[in-house]
């Protein structure tokens, strides 16, 4: 994929990000349970065609950077009963992320 067809990556490993609390119609790959939560960028996976566009047979370009975001399980689930250090890592596209202000 040519660089011109990708949106530049805004976040770096270690950045704190918040998943947008949004509920647009259509095919989404952002799980409900992480929306609105803050996590840490674990890695940039590359840039991929936007699945929300692909679902309607559109090209999904420019490609969106895709990240692995690491969340503390206790942040995702207030009633989490297992270890405080457990984490959940989720692939999230850049257009669902904003810089976390804490």
């Amino acid at each position, binding site marked *: 994929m040519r660089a011109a067809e990708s949106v530049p990556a805004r976040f770096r490993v270690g950045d704190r990000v918040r998943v947008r609390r949004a509920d647009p119609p259509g095919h989404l*790959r*952002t*799980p409900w*349970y992480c929306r609105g939560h803050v996590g840490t960028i674990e890695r940039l*996976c*590359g840039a*991929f065609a936007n*699945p929300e566009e692909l679902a309607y047979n559109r090209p999904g370009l420019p490609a969106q950077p*895709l990240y*692995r975001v690491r969340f503390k*399980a206790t942040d*995702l*689930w207030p009633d*989490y*009963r*297992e*270890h405080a*250090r*457990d*984490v*959940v*890592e*989720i*692939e*999230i*596209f850049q257009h669902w992320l904003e810089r976390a202000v804490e």
Partner: protein
Amino acid sequence: MSGASSDTAGYYRRMQAAVEELLILKGIVTPEEVQRQVDAMDARNYKRGASMVARAWCDSAFKARMLANGSAAAEELGLEVGPLKLIVVENTPGIHNVIVCTLCSCYPRMLLGIPPEWYKSRAYRSRVVREPRAVLAEFGTRLPEDVDIRVHDSTADMRYMVLPLRPRGTDGWNEERLAALVTRDSLIGVARLPDLG
């Protein structure tokens, strides 16, 4: 393809058959192409993943390359992985990894073959992200108290495989013998491999 679970999913089973018939009637695919694809899927199983794990246990340079780029490492062993990107996550004495796809049932088919029914179940997909130890216990897997869990939700273009801890008591074993110890469930992360001796 058949069996109790697909019989109970009657609506989807019939819709799948109808779509397949339509695609064939319209000349978009041939029955031979469908059969070839089914055969190709059936031919792949978790032994591919097991061979990667055994190589990584024996060759630390390969292991480093595999953790940096799973797809490239698979191709190095002649395993076709296709366009999806493979990420291998390593179990350590302090971290245990588990794979899930909460949205559907994404699975590293290119290395593990067809996913087990439970992997696609709503119960596994919804529970393993919020009570992983309870779910693992139902598989007969109990982690030591000092081990933390890392759950990987496979939501987009990556696919995941766990690199299990090498069982104790296997010093000097060759790759073939080691690969025979690796189970499918250990590559998904719902099981650990028992130590020998």
